[in-house]
């Protein structure tokens, strides 16, 4: 493994060291092979790359700004540059992935996409891309989440998607993913599964990374232009890990740049109520890949907990597992309370309401700032905006009443 550089990973079978691969029913292997072949083709297909860039630019609002957050910097004690993915269309970095996959779906001649969603952000993004490309869209969502996130269900339906509430298992994101996989195995000839993060069986982790890696490519160039040098650290939140791998990837060869991924520590890793797969889990196989997962002694998946629906998943993308094992990136948990504290800080210093997911990255950046000191420059991926979280945050801070 030592002679491999990160850019060459995964290997041809989708392995990042001992992680990744394909742990999937044989019925889906031909579809994964087809997707892999198409994914390889587009890498060197200038036509595809131009079309993708044009879509991102004219529809997605990309490249996003790198904002020199001086008031936040003053409060935190280091120079913080915010990568404003929250300003993208649909409100998060996820638009990059769905536009890329929709373009790919069109190339494969498939007319239907399915997606899983937790709080509904990836569902909304998928419904958006499907509408733009004239594709049928079915979104699987835990029954409990469809009630808690009624507004996002309405958004998806407004965009023409069918939302299917999932009432099996723990009725959460992982069960929505199970149900999407069951749909896929049944309808694979006509359907593309638009996975929402850099996880799942090969080629999804690599493909989603490549659709999101523009975040880091842009941030690197923007930082050099703004400051004349590379940042000392890059911080991102990690659930499945698409925004984190998206911003990390271009910096991996820059050994002077520290990479930090912040997992959802929930009520604290020691309480068992968290979603920190790397710092609080073990190696295992879930949803098609070997990675770090939350599991019991018998290998049964343990339910995750986080105030942030987007990080509330008991697994993580395999490339993060590999970056952790090699030590290239550092992963730490951030509790709900720390994240909400950072959420409030950004609201009050910069007038920006972040997604609670991204608030985990901000909370982590505060720690990194204490460690690196006032001369440090830290790029933080502000992966999404907080409109969707206003109710959760309002209740957390006691500024709106609980609905009975």
């Amino acid at each position, binding site marked *: 493994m030592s002679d491999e550089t990160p850019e060459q990973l995964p290997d041809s079978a989708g392995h990042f060291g001992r992680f990744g*691969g394909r742990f999937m029913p044989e019925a889906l292997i031909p579809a994964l092979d087809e997707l892999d072949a198409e994914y390889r083709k587009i890498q060197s297909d200038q036509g595809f790359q131009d079309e993708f860039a044009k879509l991102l630019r004219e529809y997605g609002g990309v490249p996003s700004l790198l904002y020199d957050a001086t008031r936040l910097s003053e409060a935190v004690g280091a120079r913080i540059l915010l990568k404003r993915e929250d300003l993208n269309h649909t409100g998060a970095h996820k638009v990059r992935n769905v536009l890329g996959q929709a373009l790919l779906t069109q190339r494969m001649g498939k007319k239907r996409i399915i997606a899983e969603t937790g709080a509904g952000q990836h569902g909304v993004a998928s419904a958006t891309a499907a509408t733009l490309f004239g594709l049928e869209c079915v979104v699987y969502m835990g029954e409990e989440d469809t009630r808690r996130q009624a507004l996002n269900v309405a958004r998806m339906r407004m965009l023409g998607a069918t939302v299917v509430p999932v009432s099996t298992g723990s009725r959460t994101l992982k069960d929505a993913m199970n149900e999407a996989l069951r749909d896929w*195995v049944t309808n*694979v000839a006509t359907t593309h599964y638009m996975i929402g993060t850099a996880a799942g069986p090969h080629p999804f982790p690599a493909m989603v990374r490549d659709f999101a890696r523009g975040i880091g490519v842009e941030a690197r160039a923007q930082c050099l232009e703004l400051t004349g040098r590379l940042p000392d650290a890059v911080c991102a939140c990690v659930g499945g890990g698409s925004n984190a791998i998206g911003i990390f990837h271009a910096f991996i060869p820059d050994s002077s740049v520290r990479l930090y991924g912040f997992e959802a520590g929930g009520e604290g890793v020691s309480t068992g109520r968290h979603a920190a797969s790397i710092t609080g889990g073990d190696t295992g196989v879930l949803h098609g890949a070997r990675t770090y997962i939350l599991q019991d002694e018998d*290998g049964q998946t343990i339910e995750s907990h986080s105030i942030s629906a987007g990080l509330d998943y008991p697994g993580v993308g395999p490339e993060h597992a590999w970056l952790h094992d090699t030590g290239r990136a550092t992963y730490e948990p951030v509790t709900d309370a720390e994240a909400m504290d950072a959420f409030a800080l950004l609201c009050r210093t910069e007038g920006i309401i972040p997604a609670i997911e991204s608030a985990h990255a901000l909370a982590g950046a505060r720690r990194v700032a204490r460690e690196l000191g006032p001369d440090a420059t830290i790029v933080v991926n502000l992966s999404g905006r907080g409109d969707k979280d206003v109710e959760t945050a309002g209740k957390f801070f006691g500024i709106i009443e609980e609905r009975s």
Partner: protein
Amino acid sequence: MSLAPTFEKARADGRGVLIGCMPAGFPTVEGGIEAMRAMAAAGVDVIEVELPYSDPVMDGPVIQRASEIALAGGVRTADVLRTIEAVAEVGVPVVLMSYWNPIERYGVDRFARDFAAAGGAGVITPDLIPDEAQEWLAASDRYGLDRIFLVAPASTDERLAMTAEHCRGFVYATSVMGVTGAREQTSSAAPTLVERLRRFTDLPVGVGLGVRDGSQAAAVAGYADGVIVGSALIRCLLDAPDPDSGLEALRALSADLAQGVRAPSAATEKQ
């Protein structure tokens, strides 16, 4: 112990092998053992014990529900091994169907050792393809276990050949693209898949997904060596008003299916 003699004998008798599936720990560990022994006594040739798993992506609603009941009852991997031992004791060959993570978590070599010691014949691995199975290939060789990988109508010829080459005991052909569950008709894709598979292997072929009664079993036995039935058997227990009538329904369906595989239809089933 291997499944080979069971298939050889059935082939000589001109009939199919009936493979009946039941999750361990459903409705309880003891209740599951009793159900599986009842199936064997009523004519099921091979018992397929399913290891209940939190995320069974290949399974339809019936097996999901039974697995949830088993997990809610606190079934552990050790209970699954105990079930296998208790069922194998009555002289019926036992295979396990398990998603990969519980086996990996137990330790692949250790699992193969303990499974063989419990009298298990082989393991069906629905989410493990031979491409990722190096450790399992070695462990199953070491302990002389059958290993049954799945093929599907969408599998290419190359993958059919490669997968069959790594199987021992039999090859599991999923007859429809989809999850487990009884259907009105088994798919017409199944005979085609079995025919394609036979170009690459002399191993017996078992067909699963969708069989719910004796006449469907007879139809499948007309072109396949093994008939795999799961959801329809499990439903006998799920739908029963009380355990005794559940077991009674289970015995009746097992006997009906056993009769079906003994009277293979010559013609391929029509849609």
